[in-house]
């Protein structure tokens, strides 16, 4: 199996926040913590694009590199997970992550920063799969249930794709071929503007 990956088709994302809601509901994520969020580029400008962002489960994850207590690990499927029993809540991973994925609950007294929380690709954590302890710390383990991440499965327009990297790349490639354009997908051209199809002139 290839690595598990997310990809967001910005041609399809309608900023409904269904993925955010699905994630919060599935894992019972507390207030103040958003494992996933929708970001809109050029908001209000014709040709605006939205993308759904969470942990991208990097192949060479900066969070893993900077963690002083080495609480991160990677599964065989390429999912980057962490151990909350080892995490000290220092926040280094938050500074290192280019996607702003690490979240810190502020539910304690005086806004005490708790253990880091982030998208698990619905793969739980180091506790026993499907156990109550795993659910309370990391949320539901859908991959071990033979399912894909809730955010992607709940996406109404199927903009957010998740799964085996080869499969999701194939699905997106097919879409791009069918609609005859591909530069609008989340990437360099969308983020920084280009004059390719779908982008307003001069952007």
């Amino acid at each position, binding site marked *: *199996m290839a690595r598990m990956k997310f990809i967001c088709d910005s041609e399809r994302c309608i900023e409904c926040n269904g993925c955010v809601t699905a994630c919060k509901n599935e894992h019972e994520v507390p207030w103040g913590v958003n494992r996933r969020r929708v970001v809109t580029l050029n908001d209000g400008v014709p040709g605006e694009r939205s993308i759904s962002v969470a942990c991208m489960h990097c192949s060479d994850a900066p969070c893993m590199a900077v963690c002083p*207590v*080495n*609480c991160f*690990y990677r*599964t*065989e*499927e390429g999912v980057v*997970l962490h*151990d909350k*029993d*080892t995490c000290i809540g220092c926040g280094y991973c938050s500074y290192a992550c280019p996607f702003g994925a690490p979240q810190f609950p502020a539910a304690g007294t005086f806004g005490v920063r708790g253990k880091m929380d982030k998208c698990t690709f619905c*793969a739980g*954590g*180091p506790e*026993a*799969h*499907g156990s109550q302890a795993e659910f309370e710390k990391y949320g539901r*383990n859908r*991959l*071990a*249930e*033979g*399912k*894909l991440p809730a955010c*992607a*499965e709940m996406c109404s327009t*199927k903009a957010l*794709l*998740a*799964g*085996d990297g080869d*499969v*999701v790349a194939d*699905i997106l490639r*097919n*879409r791009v071929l*069918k609609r005859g354009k591909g530069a609008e997908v989340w990437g360099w051209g969308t983020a920084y503007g280009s004059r390719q199809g779908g982008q307003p002139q001069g952007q």
Partner: protein
Amino acid sequence: MRATLVITAALFGLVACGESPQTANRVKQDAALFQGTGKPAPFVASGWKAGDRSSWEQQLKTRAQQGQNDYAKVN
């Protein structure tokens, strides 16, 4: 007397060098995902066998195609 004092002070000063390293060395023990959760059918997708890696991988591939590839569903 002075020499003894210096040696004692040096020994006292080097005590910290003898400390054992305090590193987080907890070994991550996470079972493979294809092992499943051991829960009954309504909570687990059907069509694959827990503990069988190839059936689990095939299940995820099939689910991705059926659930996310609308071109495959329509055509």
